[in-house]
């Protein structure tokens, strides 16, 4: 009898019972040369929450699947995974528009997704197949979509590129901005300071974002930087330090930064304090320079997906079953994508020399020996 009663109660709940939106306290951001930081409270609607949850979970599962495929030697070369940092990519995208621009370094799978790529084409790129987002010719570090400029392998080089995109935004007068990401390791690069200077001089609409995950490969921030206050390193550029594990904090900070840029005030800098569960890349177990305890502590206390999930559940914004349902759907999407990525054929050899030049007539390319003449088309 009790059992029947329970079933009735459960099935009687409808979606109309859920809280449509709620306000959450978010951590105060430290500010540098800014009058005030983002508000201390963020409003989250049910739809937004479900969408952020789904996207973060998709990134998480996609990266874990990539880990699996790498260990099976189906993915080769470099593979830098983003699990743990999901709130950054999702929070940033929530604070800008798809018509804005974004560029990052090599830990780019999450951004490829938030910028419009599909799991299928991302995974097929990792496995080097013709259905990959770059037809298998780029690999993990060289994925592109509309208004997303990669995926860049040379540490720090993407920062001047991003400021250049911002220059184009200003030049063309379309009220767009460029989000320009780099890590704590890259933050010491000279070209980044060159970029701060020009972006500031010319008031480029550029949001510089340092994803500080505490380690540049195997070197902790204390061992690499004389000043680890990355949000202040822009000196004359206003900055804020943000809790990068909280998708709402990231979103609110991004909104503030976007507003700053769009109002013509020039660049702004955000430091997102975040964490990567994996090592630097798949070649790095990630435990020689940090303890398993540290990793475990972050997982249990600050996981971005858990944080969002707890918030939504405790405010009755979603049900456990609903979120489980999303998990199942995500898992299926990843499985399908992995299936595609492992069965899609590799690019045809005919494609070897294509895409050297854009908008050019076909040309000949020397093969490995003088008798081999290969064809290249745009």
């Amino acid at each position: 009898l009790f059992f029947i009663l329970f079933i009735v109660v459960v099935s009687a709940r409808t979606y109309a019972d859920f809280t449509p939106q709620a306000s959450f306290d978010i951590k105060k951001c430290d500010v540098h040369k800014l009058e005030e930081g983002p508000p201390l409270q963020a409003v989250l609607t049910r739809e937004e929450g479900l969408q952020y949850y789904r996207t973060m979970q998709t990134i998480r599962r996609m990266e874990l699947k990539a880990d699996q495929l790498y260990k099976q030697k189906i993915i080769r070369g470099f593979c830098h995974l983003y699990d743990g940092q999901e709130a950054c990519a999702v929070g940033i995208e929530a604070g800008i528009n798809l018509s804005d621009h974004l560029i990052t370094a090599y830990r780019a799978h999450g951004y490829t997704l938030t910028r419009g790529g599909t799991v299928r084409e991302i995974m097929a790129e990792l496995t080097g197949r013709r259905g990959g987002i770059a037809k298998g010719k780029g690999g993990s570090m060289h994925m592109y979509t509309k208004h997303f400029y990669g995926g860049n392998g040379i540490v720090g080089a993407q920062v001047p590129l991003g400021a250049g995109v911002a220059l184009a935004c200003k030049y063309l007068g379309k009220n767009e901005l460029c989000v320009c990401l780099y890590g704590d390791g890259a933050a010491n690069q000279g070209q980044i300071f060159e970029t701060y200077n020009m972006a500031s001089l010319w008031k480029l609409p550029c949001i510089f974002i340092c994803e500080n995950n505490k380690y540049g490969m195997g070197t902790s921030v204390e061992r690499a930087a004389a000043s680890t206050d990355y949000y202040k390193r822009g000196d004359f550029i206003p900055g804020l330090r943000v809790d990068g594990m909280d998708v709402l904090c990231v979103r609110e900070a991004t909104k503030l930064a976007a507003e700053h840029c769009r109002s013509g005030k020039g660049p702004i800098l955000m430091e997102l304090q975040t964490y990567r569960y994996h090592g630097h890349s798949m070649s790095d177990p990630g435990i020689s320079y940090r303890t398993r305890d540290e990793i475990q502590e972050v997982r249990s206390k600050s996981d971005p997906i858990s944080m969002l999930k707890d918030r939504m559940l405790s405010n009755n914004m979603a049900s456990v079953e609903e979120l489980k349902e999303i998990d199942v759907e995500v898992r299926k999407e990843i499985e399908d994508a992995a299936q595609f990525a492992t069965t899609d054929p590799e690019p045809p050899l005919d494609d070897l020399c294509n895409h050297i030049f854009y908008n050019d007539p076909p040309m000949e390319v020397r093969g490995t020996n003088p008798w081999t003449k290969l064809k290249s088309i745009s």
Partner: protein
Amino acid sequence: MASLRCFLRSGKKAVTAVLRREFHGTPPAAVQVTVRDALNQAMDEELERDERVFLLGEEVAQYDGAYKVSRGLWKKYGDKRIIDTPITEMGFAGIAVGAAMAGLRPICEFMTFNFSMQAIDQVINSAAKTYYMSAGLQSVPIVFRGPNGASAGVAAQHSQCFAAWYGHCPGLKVVSPWSAEDARGLLKSAIRDDNPVVFLENELMYGVPFEMSEEVQSKDFLIPIGKAKIERQGTHITLVSHSRMVSLCLDAAAVLAKEGIECEVINMRTIRPLDAEAIETSIMKTNHLVTVEGGWPQFGIGAEILARIMEGPAFNYLDSPAVRVTGVDIPMPYAKILEDNSVPQIKDIIFSIKKTLNV
């Protein structure tokens, strides 16, 4: 009455035309234009033609250009289109590449190509390779230009030739003009090209005037990238060169003509893609080859040309081994006597030709 109409049509050009009519009585309004002015006019016309084109670099705006190549452009087009940068090559080259990725058509000036080494990662890894890495999703329509190679008395760090370095890399087009006509036609083509183009100028050529026909003066005069030009027809030997060395080849040819040796002088115009066919066709006629370049010998332009000739149909037409005339394999010294002996001179070219011809 014809001269009055001319005068009303355009200022200085018309005056020259009028003078010519009086002295020579020849109709076409050819003019004398320095390489510098040719570059300036080409940029001016392309800036006017396409709003997305802009110029950035050190001293390009208010200083009128370190070598005055961009004289008058800032006054005409303003801060938005002619941008003075701080002395931060890696930064501004990267910014230029990013702007090209996002839809603009930048001309990025390096005060000399020696300074491009600071930014070479952006030229190669960000510009040249991107279209390929993205499998055609992301193109980079940018021109990197500036003086290349030896100048006069500027010593080792300011005298290197980068033709071989950039010519090595797929994804780049590398162009090396000699005359004013080359400068004009190739720069226009480079700016209109949707791909990264490295445009190697030469400081010692900036002030040299060349005759420019009316056809060349037209706003849509373009020289195709990848096609060499035969500057002088000959039958006994093929000389292949680029940039300033073309002048020396022509001078050597003039001297040798008096001795009955007729040199065919090929102006490469483009380093990459290299017009091997033009060279091969010439060798099949002359049976001898000497390449002449200002840069260092090892792994250089001449080395590539010789390798290609070895591998191709022209090898069987050579009556003697092809040789290279190059800069001396040392950093550039300062003292004039030393500097003069570090780069090919006319006598070196003549010597090599005679050795090759066994005369």
